[in-house]
């Protein structure tokens, strides 16, 4: 039945797989946040042509699966002479997918701040920079945080798909060990533990962060 010595022997594999999952997720999420900030900025500032491009990008990225995006990046792009490592493809893929989700969350936050707030700030004599940093952003962040946290969790989960382009993440380790030793119980057990270890703290931290930032609703 359940073989603890197997777990002990192969736990280091799962630790390294978990670290790979974290590495890809962290950089993918940072890229997604950067893309999301730019897109949300372009959209709310209503910059003509750029805004339409952003809308097209958001629709494309939201309505296609990450797996197909990764296959396109990893197997398709080299035919155009663009050869990226699996790690780069995974990070770019997560950034491409997550950027649109982040953009929607951030835009929602910015739009939730009534115009009156900005106008009042001007009337009170604040500069546009001050009104943005002291009045608009703090309120926008408070609305955007729950969405951003949900997207962070979503992207860490989505990162499980990178095993499909031969990246040795935690999913890949589980599949490998099941294939090699038929150690289904032990491998699946370690897989579940690994994701609980990653995602439970993130989820708890997210809840704390939401509470910390909900001053606009009090």
């Amino acid at each position: 039945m359940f073989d603890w010595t197997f777990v002990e022997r192969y736990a280091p594999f799962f630790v390294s797989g978990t670290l790979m999952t974290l590495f890809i997720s962290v950089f993918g999420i940072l890229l997604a946040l950067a893309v999301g900030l730019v897109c949300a900025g372009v959209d709310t500032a209503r910059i003509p042509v750029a805004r339409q491009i952003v809308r097209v990008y958001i629709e494309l990225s939201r309505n296609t699966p990450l797996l197909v995006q990764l296959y396109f990046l990893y197997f398709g792009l080299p035919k155009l002479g663009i050869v990226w490592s699996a790690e780069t493809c995974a990070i770019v893929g997560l950034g491409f997918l997550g950027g649109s989700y982040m953009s929607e969350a951030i835009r929602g936050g910015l739009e939730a701040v009534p115009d009156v707030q900005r106008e009042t700030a001007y009337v009170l004599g604040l500069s546009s920079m001050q009104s943005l940093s002291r009045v608009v952003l703090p309120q926008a962040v408070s609305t955007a945080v729950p969405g951003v946290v949900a997207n962070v969790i979503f992207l860490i989960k989505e990162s499980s798909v990178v095993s499909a382009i031969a990246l040795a993440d935690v999913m890949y380790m589980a599949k490998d060990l099941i294939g090699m030793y038929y150690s289904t119980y032990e491998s699946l057990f370690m897989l579940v533990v690994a994701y609980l270890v990653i995602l439970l703290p993130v989820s708890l931290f997210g809840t704390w962060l939401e509470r910390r930032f909900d001053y606009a609703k009090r």
Partner: protein
Amino acid sequence: MQSAEILLQPGVFPRLLQGLWVTVWIAGVSVGASVPVGLLVGWLMTLRNPIVRAVMRVYLDFIRIMPQLALLFLAYYGFARWFNWNLDATGACVLVFVLWGGAELGDLVRGALTSIPKAQYESAYVLGLGPWQTFARVILPQAVRRMLPASVNLATRIVKTTSLAVLLGVVEVIKVGQQIIDVNRFQYPDGTLWVYGAIFFMYFIVCWPLSIVARRLEKRWANG
């Protein structure tokens, strides 16, 4: 660029469409079966019974925290050994998507049901409606309005996630694409780009209308 002709080869496009049909079929069956499961789960979650509550809480949290691919592995490899239950890959996919869709939809149902003010129930009783009439005529129409936009979005996510079926070996659109690429490797060495590009847009064409419907509903029923 002439590799694009791979898509115009006889049989290539129809085969991709056949593969897409498998994808859409899995998604359709999963979404369809999620609806009754979701309604049941949502109703169970509104009950006050502490045991039912705890069970539902664990079920929802576990499904929420595990990546769908991990759930697929649990069903496909795990169930075979735990219960000697040899699900085929398609069966494992549908099972996982129904459990996942049911949990997410259940939470939406719970949210919609609990967001309806008590006064609505009381007014309905005062007007002489029975409990079943109250539910069917007063509560349900309002609850549906509140949860429909998010539910349609959930359907888009289920369609997208069916792409993972290929990793368990289901012959759906991505697998068909890989077969086409392999067969034409020498004639069209750059076929990869075009075939995966075509699949990318196929998913887009299936999911985009759903996204638009969700957004329309959201706007129209913003304060339903």
